[in-house]
């Protein structure tokens, strides 16, 4: 039950992009087509999960132990950046097909706030997550990100065919759509 709550909360109620504003740049950048959005979501799920696990361990067994929590930002980002690159290198060799599907999105993830954001949130003392909970939280957050992005990509592909007024065409209307999507997602608030 506890896990279900974490999952529902992270996907719908506190959706990373729509409610928490994390990872907004790729949310807009890579959502022009549904296919790309799906690929990006896959990559995010993968990296976010691994990154959260690694940083969680780092936090609990290094930073907390030496009481140097203030080094959180710098170590986390270092870990994430290296991790992304590592995954990219390995994937390219080991599974070119998977690399084709996900690899191209990997570099984009380093500068995706959502990954660092979720890693930072997962170690927040208020939540008091253990490793498993943190992992579930990361996976669910990433799925929430992916869900929002795929829906959004569908809407944008649709908008491409519509007769949008000149000034609103492209990015502006995308923001309005994102806003209305967030408005709709507010309906989930309070589910717990």
């Amino acid at each position, binding site marked *: 039950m506890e896990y279900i709550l974490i999952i529902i909360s992270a996907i719908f109620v506190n959706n990373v992009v729509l409610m928490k504003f994390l990872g907004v*740049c*790729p949310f*807009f*950048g*890579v959502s*022009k087509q549904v296919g*790309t959005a799906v*690929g*990006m979501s896959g990559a995010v799920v993968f990296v976010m999960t691994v990154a959260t696990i690694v940083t969680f361990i*780092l936090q609990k067994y*290094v*930073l907390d132990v*030496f*009481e*140097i929590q203030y*080094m959180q930002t*710098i*170590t986390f980002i*270092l*870990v994430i*950046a*290296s991790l992304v*690159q*590592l995954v990219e*290198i*390995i994937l*390219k*060799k*080991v599974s070119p097909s998977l690399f084709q599907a996900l690899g*191209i*999105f*990997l*570099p*984009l993830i*380093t*500068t995706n706030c959502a990954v660092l954001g979720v890693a930072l949130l997962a170690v927040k003392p208020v939540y008091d997550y253990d490793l498993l909970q943190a992992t579930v939280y990361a996976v669910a957050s990433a799925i929430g990100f992916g869900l929002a992005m795929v829906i959004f990509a569908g809407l944008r592909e649709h908008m491409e065919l519509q007769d949008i007024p000149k000034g609103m065409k492209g990015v502006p209307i995308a923001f309005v759509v994102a806003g209305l999507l967030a408005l709709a997602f507010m309906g989930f608030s309070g589910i717990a």
Partner: protein
Amino acid sequence: MNEVITATIITVSSVGVVAAVILYWASQKFKVFEDPRIDKVEEILPAANCGGCGYPGCRNFAEVCVKSDSLDDLFCPVGGNGCMSSVAKVLGREVSEKDKMTAVIRCNGAPQFRKKTTHFDGALNCTIQSDLYAGETACQYGCVGLGECADACDFNALHMDPITELPVVTEANCTGCNACVVACPKDIIELRPAGKKSRRIFVSCINEDRGGAAKKACAVACTGCTLCFKECEYDAIVIENFLAYIDPLKCVLCRKCVQVCPTGAIWEVNLPPRKAKPAKETDKKPEEKKEVDLIKTAKENITENKTVDNKQDKKNKTE
């Protein structure tokens, strides 16, 4: 040095070093061959990996740049123009200066020369109309005037003249991209060398009907009378299927054909105004003049109102 500082330094540097070692090891171990130009392009790109270019990540964008044939639709918003031109340089993709080609409209059949016998009421698209039938006038070759070519032009070099209902080329904008030629279902548009000082002479008609039929359908049609052919000293003119064609490579811009054409089908572009001719020749002139006046007065007579109406009509329909 106190404890915290030591711990900090050790932790962070070891994370850094471990990362470097692992990455190095991995990049050696899992090396994959790739087009080296991709690296070069990637180097030029800002590595912001922001996705602003529409591709996921700079490297991916670099790959696309290397693989695609043209950089026209590719743009990195972070790096900007400078960055893109460096990319082009690396890839050796600068557009080499070709002979400038420009579009010419080979139909002169404004409504006052070419009576409309029917009214087309389908979707306003040249191809749809010409797939359906020969067109609103008796000339089955002429421009149908629904502006598909103008829509196809990405450079704002073509617009439809509301009075003549024919496309007009803005030469300065025309890049010779061929889009309009492909778009036009009637093959009205031809790309011709812009010519010396942008001066050109060409036959603005593609009617292949026999003289009488052509003339009946359109007052300014080429009737294939061969007068120009006979006049031309440079063999620049051929006549086939009752239609004259001027070879741009042979034409020396002597303008003799322009004067002899009884229907005014031959156009001269950007040539200086003619010197006043000796009196003898003027007996031919009135006719020519009449044509010109016709266009002029027609243009003047059509009040602004009507033009607006025309546009309104089209807008209504397309909306």
